[in-house]
């Protein structure tokens, strides 16, 4: 069915606002995080929380613990307590920021949806205004120009130009019409032209908008398999360190071997725990989903995003993904003994009323050769549109003259006579990746027009990146083998399936999955639905049918198939961020040993022994300040790494071993170095501050006020 109107670029208005984040809300939420019921969700930080509470009591009332608080020192205890508070607060802050990012996005989405009224079509055909909330699956509503579409559905009657910018941020309006593959509309989008009837396909609360809101808000966010496994590893660490430290306190106290201050032991424990990754782990998970949402993709689960990082095979449609989508006429070849002028004329005749991109490109090609379109009087001709069965299109003039263009095969079936020379040329053209169409007048073939697929600019580089990451790409196309091979060669795709029938993708996916590979594909038609459902990552196009969107586990609102490549990067980034920060956290610890362990011995009076100097690499002579420096570093590294957790680590496609080498150097060695430098700098700063008069006054005040009730 032809559209009732033309699509004019820029026929719409607003672009979705950049979500605004409320700092007050972030702050409030970060303090609410101190609620033990919230802290307990992160076992590692909960341990820090317990120690923090214990230290508060100990700082305020040391007389209650005569055994433990033998070396009680009010300013030192207070300092450790405050730094623990900051550590916890920074951890909460990262969660709050990640959540706020999502919430802000959700709010701007909610605005779109609020209070839409719908014109429901009653069974008797009459119309009535109802609140969109009460619409059920199967109801039909009518939407007129200027009105918002109340809920997700399929167009069952009419066609319309629709502004989806509020959902997708895409400024070009899109066409939706009944029948075919472009029937689905989204709730919250606005009709610009045309009146349509829409059958509701989702209940309130289940629409894409609702899903997107829930997702970015982090509600019901399932922790992904890798996040769970990393969590287990970190908890195992925490549990054993906790046990080690508790026995350490106990043994130190009992054996009197070496007296270590309780606040120092708490500091040692907090420093040795991988608190950096522990604090940032939830934020990384939330932000992964957010990043996908910012790329205008709705992921139905966080799992799907993570799976994207694991993909082995991408199945790409040739048209629209690898090539610009439209084949363009590039050359005209005459049949033997046919003048070029006749061919040009015929080409123009059969194409000037053909509004397909192919048709238009023929007109442009002919025009370039100087022949201008002839004006045809209305009623003097009949257009024969292209149909799948006939695989030809053409025009019948009033004088009975018929001009057709179509594939050579179709021409033959029709009965046209194709000279051998023409067939040879056609085969030659196919071999070069072009698609030859024959143009015939009646049953006489006049010549060929060659169409060529134009490979998208930049796609070659992206395919090469994928190859570096170890992902194989398979192009799926209905074209013949020769055309497919030529495009495959030009674009650098690894493999191709030519003359693909609609079920080819499903077969391909099953074949790859049987070999244990993780497969992704894009699709938009109802035909694609089974394959989308079967794929590990099925990215449905927003412009596609509801069936396709239901089947896939992600929907791209921009309907850009190349976004699959971007999603792979986001998935990988998500995992690398987790792994990198874990490594960073662990190598940080090594540096912290060298700050705290010598401090422990210096405090115990062993500072003069030569071994200590060997261990005290950083030259931290004041043991209290050394411990505080390590603890401060441990705390401030969390907010410093929040951006990395929220936006992901920089990622450039490489092969695995290069990536490991680079990330080990960056996060492993970097973690070691930054902690050494950071702790030393903080130590210098603290030493300087300690000498400031007002700090000393403050220390005196603290010593007088604490402990409550006297020691």
């Amino acid at each position, binding site marked *: 069915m032809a559209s009732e109107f033309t699509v004019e670029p820029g026929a719409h208005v607003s672009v979705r606002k950049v979500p605004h984040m409320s700092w007050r809300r972030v702050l409030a939420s970060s303090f609410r995080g101190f609620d033990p019921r919230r802290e307990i969700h992160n076992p590692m930080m909960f341990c820090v929380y317990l120690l923090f509470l214990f230290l508060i009591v100990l700082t305020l009332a040391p007389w209650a613990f005569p055994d433990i608080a033998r070396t009680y020192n009010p300013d030192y205890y207070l300092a450790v307590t405050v730094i623990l508070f900051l550590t916890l607060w920074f951890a909460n802050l990262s969660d709050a920021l990640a959540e706020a990012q999502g919430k802000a996005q959700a709010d701007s989405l909610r605005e779109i949806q609020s209070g839409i009224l719908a014109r429901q079509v009653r069974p008797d055909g009459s119309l009535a205004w109802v609140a969109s909330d009460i619409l059920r699956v199967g109801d039909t509503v009518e939407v007129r120009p200027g009105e918002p579409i109340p809920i997700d559905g399929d167009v069952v009657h009419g066609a319309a130009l629709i502004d989806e910018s509020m959902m997708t941020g895409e400024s070009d309006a899109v066409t939706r019409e009944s029948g075919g593959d472009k029937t689905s509309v989204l709730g919250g989008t606005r009709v610009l032209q045309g009146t349509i009837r829409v059958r509701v396909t989702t209940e309130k609360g289940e629409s894409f908008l609702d899903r997107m809101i829930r997702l970015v808000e982090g509600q019901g966010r399932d922790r992904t*398999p*890798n996040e*769970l*496994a990393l969590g*287990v*590893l970190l908890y*195992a*660490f925490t*549990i*054993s*360190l906790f*046990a*080690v*430290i508790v*026995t*350490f306190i*106990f*043994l130190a106290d009992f*054996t009197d*071997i*070496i007296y270590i201050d309780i606040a120092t032991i708490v500091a040692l424990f907090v420093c*040795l725990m991988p608190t950096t990754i522990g604090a940032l782990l939830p934020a990384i998970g939330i932000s992964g989903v957010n990043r996908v949402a910012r790329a205008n993709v709705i992921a139905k689960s966080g799992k799907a995003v993570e799976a994207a*990082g*694991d993909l*082995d095979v991408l199945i790409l449609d040739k048209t629209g993904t690898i090539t610009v989508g439209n084949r363009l006429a590039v050359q005209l070849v005459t049949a033997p003994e046919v003048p070029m002028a006749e061919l040009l004329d015929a080409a123009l005749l059969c194409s000037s009323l053909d509004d397909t991109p192919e048709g238009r490109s023929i007109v442009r090609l002919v025009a370039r050769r100087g022949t201008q379109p002839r004006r045809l009087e209305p009623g003097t001709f009949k257009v024969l549109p292209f149909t799948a069965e006939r695989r030809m299109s053409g025009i019948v003039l009033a004088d009975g003259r018929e001009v057709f263009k179509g594939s050579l095969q179709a021409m033959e079936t029709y009965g046209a006579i194709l000279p051998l020379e023409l067939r040879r040329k056609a085969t030659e053209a196919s071999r070069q990746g072009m698609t030859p169409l024959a143009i015939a007048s009646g049953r006489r073939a006049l010549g060929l027009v060659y169409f060529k697929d134009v490979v998208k600019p930049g796609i070659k580089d992206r395919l090469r990146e994928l190859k570096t*990451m*170890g*992902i*194989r790409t398979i192009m799926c196309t209905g074209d013949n083998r020769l055309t497919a091979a030529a495009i495959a060669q030009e674009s650098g795709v690894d493999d191709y399936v030519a003359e693909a029938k609609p079920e080819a993708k499903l077969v391909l996916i099953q074949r790859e999955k049987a*070999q*244990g*590979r993780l497969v992704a594909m894009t699709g938009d038609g109802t035909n694609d639905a089974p394959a989308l459902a079967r794929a590990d990552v099925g990215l449905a196009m927003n412009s596609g049918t509801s069936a396709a969107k239901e089947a896939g586990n992600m929907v791209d609102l921009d309907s850009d198939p190349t976004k699959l490549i971007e999603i792979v990067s986001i998935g*990988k980034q998500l*995992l*690398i961020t*987790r*792994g*990198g920060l*874990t*490594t960073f956290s*662990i*190598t940080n610890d090594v540096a912290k*040993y060298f700050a705290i*362990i010598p401090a422990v*011995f210096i405090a*115990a009076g*062993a500072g003069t*022994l030569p*071994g*200590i100097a060997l261990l005290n690499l950083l030259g931290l002579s004041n043991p209290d300040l050394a411990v505080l420096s390590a603890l401060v570093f441990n705390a401030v590294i969390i907010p410093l790494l929040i951006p990395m957790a929220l936006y992901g680590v920089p*990622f450039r496609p490489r*092969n*695995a*071993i290069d*990536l*490991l*080498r680079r*990330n*080990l150097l960056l996060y*492993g060695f970097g973690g070691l170095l930054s902690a050494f430098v950071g702790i030393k700098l903080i130590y210098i700063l603290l030493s300087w501050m300690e000498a400031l008069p007002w700090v000393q006054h403050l220390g005196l005040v603290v010593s007088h006020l604490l402990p409550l009730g006297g020691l």
Partner: protein
Amino acid sequence: MAFEVQSLWDVLVVMGLALAIAPWFGSYLGRVYMDRPVFGDAFWNPIESVVYRLLGTSPRHQMRAREYMLALLLVNGGVLVILFFWFFFQSTTPLNPLGIPNMGWDLAFHSASSFTTNTNFTHFTNESQLSLGSLMVAWPLALFLSPATGLAVLAAMVRGFVRKDGTLGNFYVDMTRSVTRLLLPLAVLGALVFVLLGVPETLSASVLAHPLTGGTQTIYLGPVASFQSISLLGSNGGGFYSANMASPIANPTALTNLWGIGLMLVFPFSAPFAFGEIVRRKNEAWPYVGTIVIVLAVALALFIGFQAATNPALSTVAGLGAQTNGYPVGIDTRFSLSEGSTFQVVSVYCNVGANNLQIGSISPIAQLDLLFGMFTQSTPGGVGTGFAMLLLFAILGIFVAGLMVGRTPEYLGKKIHTSHVKWAAMALIIHPATILLPFVIAVAGNFVVVDGSTIGATSHNFTSVLYEFTSESANNGSALSTGAFNDQTLFFNVAGALVMLVGRFVPILAMLMVADIFSTQEVLPAGVGTLKTASGTFTIYLTLFLIIVTALLFLPVMAMGPLAQIFGGM
């Protein structure tokens, strides 16, 4: 004792030879467990099928993890019970010409657990508390069956990587083949060489010697050579004599000392290659070989270096002057510094636990060095289980490294999930738990008694108790020093026995459970996006991961014992 470079050569040659035959022997080992044709099939197959029939099993019967674990517990439980009753009724058992009395129930329990778990930590004195029958019949039963169990666990665990049907093998078949194809022939070879080199092998219980100093001396004898051979080969570490390999009868010459080093290294060095053979990717052995060699080399260098260094405590004593000969106390001067040290380091790092010097009097850093080997338990660790432990470390390491390359971590084409991490982490944390918990109880309950009074507040005593439980938890068997405190008590017998049993069978359970999960997974094809584990980068990564994680978990404790001793002078 001063360090001489030339005396390092002989130990390096022996270690080099052990490493050189490892690819060949490891491949043989792997083929034995995968039932691939090997040398000796014609001889052993008929004998083994008789054994299978006697045991009422068949190689066709393949067990899943649960059944395998139960069979393992049944056999090991059987050994435990037999040994317990043998020692409990020792005075009435056969072959007791010297009339050695019964053991108390707690000592019998400790000893039986110790031998069954491949620990061989002894709370008794062989010469006065062990009959010849115990030494020739009861104990050797465990000397063979406990390393056989370790090898079976290794075989079962590695099979998990290559199978998809959920089975891990047949425990009884694995045990049988461990003994017939590996332990028995090698033990015989080991014993023959020991005899050639002058170690006694006799059935007479003692001879009377007339030393130059006058009087007479009873020298206890027996099948010393064959006992020491299987003891060292199977990472048991029990000594025919209480002095073990420090006894001049069990270890008379530098050559027997070197042969002992070689025997201890045979299985640990070969295990990675057996793994490579079983998974049919020989290159995958190298990261493990690399890790083991690096850690062992560093351990050895530190040990020798600090043993040769000046004792800072002595140099501060007025009038003593500069002290230049390292830590000579408790060292067998028949061996050079490198020979003695190498034996000790290899013995502890391979979880053998046989001593040829007095650990209590060596440098504290050297003590720390030995403790570290027991903390990792996997560089290279005991027969079978040591490498299995290293695999668990590797799984955790690969998990973190895998994340860093942006893919769900996988190893040998099998994805690593939460459940793998859970079991591997459990095997990792059970170790500090079984060391620290009894330690706290021992201290809290005033169970540590030195010379009739409760523990003095010295870090040396701290280290002694720490060493005891660490050695038991790691199923090592070496002791810091006999007599540092009295461990032949009800508490240390029972606690020690429990620590050894938990330290042995919980990690084994974890190994089999990890294998169980792997054994049902499909093998995924590898691509350039997959982390390549057979690479230098991964080898270095694994080494550092292992060292840092171990240090993280144990540093506070190390600080209180050996480190306090070094820095605190306390």
